[in-house]
C-alpha cells in the first residue's frame, strides 16, 4: 500500500514537473484565443466567488422611483423594471450560472464516464444494453427532453438541474466507450495483458489516462452548453423564478422593454455569451493539446 502511495506521489510529482516544463502550457498560451478564453473564465469565476461581496446593491432591492434607468455611474448597466441594479444582479447571477453549470457537468461526467467505461470493458450484452440506452437518450433533442422533464417535475432551478443532468451524460458514455474500445486494441494494452498485468491495473494505468484528455475537453465545452441550457429553460420560465437574479430569467423579464430599456435584455445576453465563449475558447485550446491526434503530432515533431 505504502509502495503504491509512493508511486502515486512520484507520479504526481512527475506530472507536475512535466506540466511546468512542458510545451503543453506554452502551446496553449501561444494562441491568443486560448489566452482570451482563460482570462474570461478566470474573470467569471472571480465574479462568481467574490461578486456578491463587491456588488454595489442587493440583487432584490427594488427602487421603483429609479426604474428603467439607463446606464449611469450609479448603475453601470442601468436598472430594470423594478428599479433593481442590473450590474449587481449580473454579479449574483454569475455564481448561480457557474455553480449550476459545474454541478450539472460533474454529474454528467461521472454518470457518462462510468457507463462508458463499463460498456467498453464488459462488451457483449452489457455493452449492447447500455449503448441502446445511450441511443434512446440521444434520440431526443436534448433541450426538448430537458424541457419536458423540468416541466413535469415543476418549475424550479433544482428541477432544471436534474433535467439537464439526465439528458447530457450520453455523449460522455459514447466518447469514453469509443476511447476504451480503441485503446483496448492498441498494442501496449495487449502487451500489458500478455505480461499478466491485472485488468483493474490496465484500466487505471493504461486506459484511463488515454481516455481522460477528450473527456476533459468535452467537459469544458459542456460547461458552456449547460449555461446556455439553464438560461434557455429559465427564459422559457421553467428554471429560476423571479426575483432570483438568474441571467435567463433577467433576459426574459427584459423582453417587454425592448424599446424603452434595451440594456435589460442585452446585459445578461452579453454576460451569457461571453461566459460561454470563454469556456468554448478554453475547451478548444485544451483540445489542441489533449486530443490524442494532436498528441501524435507532438510525438512526431520531437
Amino acid at each position, binding site marked *: 500500500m505504502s509502495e503504491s502511495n509512493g508511486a502515486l506521489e512520484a507520479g504526481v510529482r512527475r506530472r507536475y514537473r512535466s506540466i511546468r516544463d512542458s510545451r503543453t502550457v506554452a502551446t496553449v498560451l501561444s494562441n491568443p484565443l486560448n489566452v482570451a478564453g482563460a482570462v474570461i473564465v478566470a474573470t467569471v469565476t472571480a465574479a462568481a466567488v467574490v461578486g456578491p461581496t463587491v456588488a454595489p446593491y442587493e440583487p432584490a432591492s427594488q427602487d421603483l422611483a429609479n426604474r428603467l434607468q439607463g446606464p449611469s455611474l450609479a448603475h453601470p448597466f442601468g436598472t430594470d423594471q423594478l428599479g433593481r441594479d442590473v450590474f449587481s444582479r449580473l454579479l449574483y447571477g454569475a455564481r448561480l450560472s457557474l455553480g449550476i453549470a459545474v454541478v450539472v457537468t460533474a454529474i454528467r461526467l461521472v454518470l457518462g464516464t462510468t457507463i462508458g467505461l463499463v460498456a467498453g470493458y464488459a462488451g457483449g450484452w452489457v455493452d449492447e444494453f447500455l449503448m441502446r440506452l445511450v441511443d434512446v437518450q440521444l434520440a*431526443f*433533442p436534448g*433541450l*426538448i427532453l430537458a424541457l419536458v422533464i423540468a416541466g413535469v417535475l415543476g418549475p424550479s432551478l433544482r428541477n432544471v438541474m436534474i433535467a439537464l443532468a439526465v439528458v447530457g451524460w450520453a455523449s460522455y458514455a459514447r466518447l469514453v466507450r469509443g476511447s476504451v474500445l480503441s485503446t483496448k486494441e492498441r498494442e501496449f494494452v495487449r502487451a500489458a495483458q500478455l505480461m499478466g498485468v491485472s485488468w483493474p491495473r490496465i484500466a487505471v494505468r493504461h486506459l484511463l489516462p488515454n481516455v481522460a484528455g477528450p473527456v476533459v475537453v468535452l467537459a469544458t465545452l459542456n460547461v458552456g452548453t449547460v449555461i446556455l441550457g439553464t438560461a434557455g429553460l429559465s427564459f*422559457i420560465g421553467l428554471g429560476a423564478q423571479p426575483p432570483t437574479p438568474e441571467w435567463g430569467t433577467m433576459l426574459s423579464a427584459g423582453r417587454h422593454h425592448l424599446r424603452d430599456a434595451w440594456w435589460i435584455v442585452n446585459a445578461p*445576453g452579453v454576460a451569457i455569451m461571453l461566459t460561454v465563449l470563454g469556456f468554448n475558447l478554453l475547451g478548444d485550446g485544451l483540445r489542441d493539446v489533449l486530443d490524442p491526434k494532436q498528441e501524435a503530432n507532438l510525438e512526431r515533431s520531437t
Partner: protein
Amino acid sequence: MYNYLVSRLATSVVVLFGVSLVTYGLVFLTPGDPARTILTQQLERQPSQNEVDAFRAEQGFDEPIPIQYLGWLSDALRGDLGTSYYTDTAVTTLVLEALPATLELAAASMVVALALAIPTGVLSAVNRGTTVDYASQIGALIGVSMPNFWLGYLLIMVFALVLGVLPVAGAGSFAQLVLPAITLGTGMAAVVTRLVRTSMLEVLEEPYVDTARSKGLRERIVVYKHALRNALVPVVTIVGLQFGSLLNGAVVVEIVFQRPGLGMLLVDAVFDRNYPVVQGIALFTGVVFVATNLLVDVTYRYLDPRVALGGETA
C-alpha cells in the same frame, strides 16, 4: 447494403421502443397524483374524490401501468396520440397543425446555415492562419456561444424596432420568416463552419490532394472537387444530427418571435400539464430524430464508398 439496412432498422425499432417507454414514463415523474393535479388545473379548484375517480376511469388510470402503456402504445402505432385535456382536439391534429410553421423555420434555417457555413469554412481552411481565417473562427465561436433567444431580440431591436424593415413577430409571410431563420440558422452555421474548416484542413493534407495538384488541375478544381467532396462526408453526418438541435432552438425561437409552431405548442402544454400533448410531441420528435439519423447513416454510406457494407459506424 441490404443487410446493413435491415440490421440498422432493427436497432432503430429497439431505440423507438425505448423512446416510447421514456415518453410514457415521463408522466409518472409528476409529483403527487397526476389525476388530481390535472383536474385541479382543469377545473381551477380542488376536485372532489368522485371527480377524481371518474377522471381516472375515463383516462384508464385504474388499469395496471403496463396495460395502460400497451394501450397507449397500440393507439400511438395507429396514429392516435390521445386528446388534449382542455380542447378535446386530437393530439395528432394539434401536432399536424403546428408542424408546417416549424418545418418552414427549420428548412429556412438550414439553408441559411449551409449557405453561410460551407463557403466560410472552406475559405478559412484554404487561407489557414490568415486574417480571414481568424476572423471566421472568432465569428464562428461567437455564433456558437450566442444564446439564440438573445440573438433574436437583438435582431428584433435592430431590424424591426430601429430600422423598421421587418416585422417583429408572427408567422405566415416570408418577411416574418427572415429574422427567425437568421436567428436559428447562424447558431447552426457556426457549428458547421468549424466542422467544415477542420474537415477541410484534414483533407487538404491528404496525399490524394497532391495527386490532384500534380495532374495540373487548377487549384479551384482541386479544392472544390477533390477536397470538398471528401470534407463534406463528416459534415453531412453532423448536419443531419444538428437537425435535433434545430428543434431545440425552434422552441426558443418560436417563443421569441411568437410563431405558432411545435415548440410553442409544447411549452404551452408543459405549463398546462396537458400530458397527452406533451407525450405526443415528445414521441413525435423522438421518431423524427431516429428517422433522420437513419437517413443520415444511409446517405453517409452513399457519400463515402469506403464505409464497409457491414458493421457499425460508431
